[in-house]
């Protein structure tokens, strides 16, 4: 029986970024949460140590979580800089280069005979949204429900998620271009949510000011 779960969180780091990456407490927090959720989605038998493969393991932040959970694991990564911090890993070039595109992976996986689909946690929040591609091989798997949503994506879906926010000129990261009107309005909303004192919106809000302002 072999279960396979891919967590899409890929980035390539050089030496400096690698150090920054593993020491940054926020990154550590995110990585740990992602690992926890990934292990949850694997629905492993309770209290049984398993042998897991962590593809794109990086410096082993996710691996640390796996060890804490009592599992044995092997990590794979293409980036040497990150691997220095970890022992049981090896490189696998083909797999990782190919993992860069969502549609490509899903299509390839289906072609290869895997069943499964996408689980999306917090699909309504552009910030908290996390994609998990769950693939089952050799077992008929029931796709777990995504967190924080009533309607979940079952089966393969290549549709884009539409958020409630309207935002023109989104850049590559899906965030508004800095200093644009949308960005300013979003920031004011954010601060209101934080309970801070924010000026009311008027027709002058986010109006373009002259350079000497």
């Amino acid at each position: 029986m072999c279960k396979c779960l891919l967590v899409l969180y890929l980035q390539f780091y050089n030496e400096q970024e690698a150090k920054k990456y593993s020491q940054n407490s926020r990154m550590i927090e995110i990585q740990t949460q992602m690992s926890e959720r990934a292990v949850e989605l694997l629905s492993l038998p309770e209290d049984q140590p398993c042998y897991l493969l962590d593809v794109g393991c990086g410096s082993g932040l996710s691996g640390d979580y796996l060890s804490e959970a009592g599992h044995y694991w092997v990590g794979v990564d293409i980036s040497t800089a990150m691997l220095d911090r970890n022992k049981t890993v090896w490189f696998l070039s083909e797999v990782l280069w190919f993992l860069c595109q969502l549609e490509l992976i899903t299509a390839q996986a289906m072609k290869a005979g895997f069943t499964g689909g996408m689980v999306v946690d917090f699909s309504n929040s552009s910030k908290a949204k996390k994609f998990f591609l769950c693939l089952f091989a050799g077992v008929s798997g029931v796709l777990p429900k995504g967190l924080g949503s009533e309607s979940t994506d079952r089966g393969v879906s290549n549709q884009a998620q539409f958020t409630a926010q309207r935002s023109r000129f989104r850049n590559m990261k899906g965030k508004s271009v800095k200093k644009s009107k949308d960005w300013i309005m979003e920031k004011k909303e954010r601060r209101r949510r934080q309970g801070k004192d924010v000026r009311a919106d008027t027709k002058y809000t986010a109006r373009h000011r002259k350079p000497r302002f």
Partner: protein
Amino acid sequence: MKLLTHNMLTSHVKGVTKGYPLIIKATEVKVNELEFNAQFVSRMIPKLEWNALIQAAEWLGRSQDLPSTLIPNYENDEEFLHKVHRILLEVEVIEGCLQCPESGREFPISKGVPNMLLIEDE
């Protein structure tokens, strides 16, 4: 690199059909103690290529205790499980290389990490 990992590795050089098991040429080997878990060991044994494990142990000069074929009812033999635990999880190759049995291509092991990356043409 633990021998458990080595048991799962194969050479993926282009055109190679018999890339398993990779020949271990170790220059530095360490033994790092790891907590024994009988359940894990006995569940992993049927998943291993036993012959490849014996061969790997031989290459590291540590095959004395292990039988060349699996004994029946190994799950209850604590001593046997301990021996397997040791060779599988505690013995680590820190420096050396893995050699493809067919093509002869060597994959270096550095700081316990094997580098299986191939250049474009291979």
